[in-house]
């Protein structure tokens, strides 16, 4: 059976009915989050998404959007209340919202800490704790969007790297504490390029060399796209992954399988 459906028995007519499953996807306005939202919408799910900014104009009207900062408990509670009052259930929670500040630890301010740890750690905690109140009664799946920088560091991203290691640790804890009702996994994307990619290369001293260098570090010969990550999330949300829990899945085009010493580049 297609795992997008929730099968229920109607209390009034005793009929078996199939309802679309419901997903909360945080940070769904752009980039990876938007890719996940679009994928699950295409697959027929009920979707609630949120972000700090404005509702994107091109977001399908069936998708419920709430303005919310996941680092603020009142905001996350509101997102979850909205989901329950609309759909009555949370089948899937995707914690995608995240913030990146490009600084080493010495340059990081208290405000940077509040921003990065607030969204990436507190935000995931807020969403998981409140969602589990409901999900532990009905069963469901949580997918956290982590990063390859949880395991190996990107320079001058101290708080971001650390926050993603927190996500990996919490993922295992939720899987351990709340199985078998809840499955919890994390996806660790590598370099996922959106329209930003070309801008980044335009800024390089030699855009052609920079692009060739970056591509040759990826065994699959291209950068990641939001759909690549959405594909993994879709699988982790499906019954195909029914025996998968507590794991971290790297989707990076082979970047971290390869040594940084790539003599072909020198």
């Amino acid at each position, binding site marked *: 059976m297609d795992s997008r459906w929730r099968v229920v028995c109607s209390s009034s007519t005793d009929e078996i009915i199939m309802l679309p499953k419901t997903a909360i996807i945080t940070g769904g306005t752009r980039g990876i989050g938007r890719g996940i939202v679009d994928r699950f919408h295409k697959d027929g799910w009920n979707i609630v998404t949120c972000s700090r900014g404005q509702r994107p104009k091109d977001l399908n009207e069936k998708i419920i959007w709430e303005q919310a900062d996941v680092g603020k408990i009142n905001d996350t509670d509101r997102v979850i209340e909205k989901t329950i009052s609309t759909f009555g259930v949370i089948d899937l929670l995707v914690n995608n919202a995240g913030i990146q500040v490009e600084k080493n630890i010495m340059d990081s301010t208290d405000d940077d800490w509040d921003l990065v740890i607030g969204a990436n750690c507190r935000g995931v905690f807020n969403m998981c704790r409140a969602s589990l109140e409901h999900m532990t009664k009905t069963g469901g799946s949580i997918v956290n969007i982590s990063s390859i920088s949880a395991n190996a*560091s*990107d320079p001058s991203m101290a708080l971001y790297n650390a926050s993603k290691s927190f996500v990996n640790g919490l993922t295992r804890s939720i899987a351990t504490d709340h199985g078998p009702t809840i499955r919890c996994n994390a996806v660790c994307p590598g370099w996922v390029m959106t329209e930003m990619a070309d801008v*980044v290369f335009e800024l390089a001293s030699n855009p052609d060399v*920079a692009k060739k*260098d970056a591509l040759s570090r990826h065994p699959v010969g291209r950068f990641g796209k939001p759909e690549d990550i959405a594909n993994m999330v879709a699988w982790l949300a499906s019954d195909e992954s029914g025996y998968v829990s507590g794991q971290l899945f790297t989707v990076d085009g082979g970047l971290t399988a*390869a*040594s*940084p010493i*790539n003599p072909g580049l*020198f």
Partner: protein
Amino acid sequence: MLMKMLSGKIALVTGGRGGIGRAIVNRFLKEGATVYAADLTPEGSLDSHKENGSIFIKLDVTSEKEVSTALSKIEKEEGKLDILVNAAGIEIEKTIEQTSLEEWNLSFAVNVTGTFLTSKHSLPLMRKAAKNKVSTSIINFGSYDGFIADPGLAAYCATKGAVHALTRAMACDHGPEGIRVNAVCPGYVDTPMLQSFFNGEGSGGQGQNIEKLKEAVRDVHVIKTYGTPDDIANLVNWLASDEARYASGQLWILDGGLSAQVQQMKL
């Protein structure tokens, strides 16, 4: 006066006249151990050998007969073995398509079967050493390449992954007997093997590019240099010593921070 860390211990180091093996032998001698250096020739992979006080054993680790003979010699002369370092190894610089079956089998014969045979035949002597409640130590050679791949080193990467798994298996099986088993996983270390990699066809560093390649390799490391055999010997010495009596079943990456960072694109 500084205490010597390995006084009274008997050690066998395979590949003991090679780049890293020789540094380990020298360090063990300095720490007061009796050291048997096993290798194919007295010079090993280097051009010459200056006598350092180790006892040379001619040994091809792929031959069970030679391994058995070597351990019989140590049994006769010492009656026990406290430390085994499986440092003998070879590296075929090819992709799987370029690698012949003979080269593949040789890689596994030296790097994996050699570790298996030497460890297997050392166990009876190490149990004798362990009887006195002294912890004995086997140190295998894994590699950074057992975790992530360098280009054109397919068989080598595979053998080192096998050594990592074998290390954990041996640690589980023989820990209760007082035998600790760990693997050291070096990154880029200045040895004849590394020079061969630089000169190899796959490296792109032939001819005039080799200095540029070396500089680039140093530069990509977090600490801006590659390692020396002595750096590796420092860790092997610690793992061999009683300081490490609670350390077992682990893979110890020693790579100047190389694998701590996500590889950086040159923008």
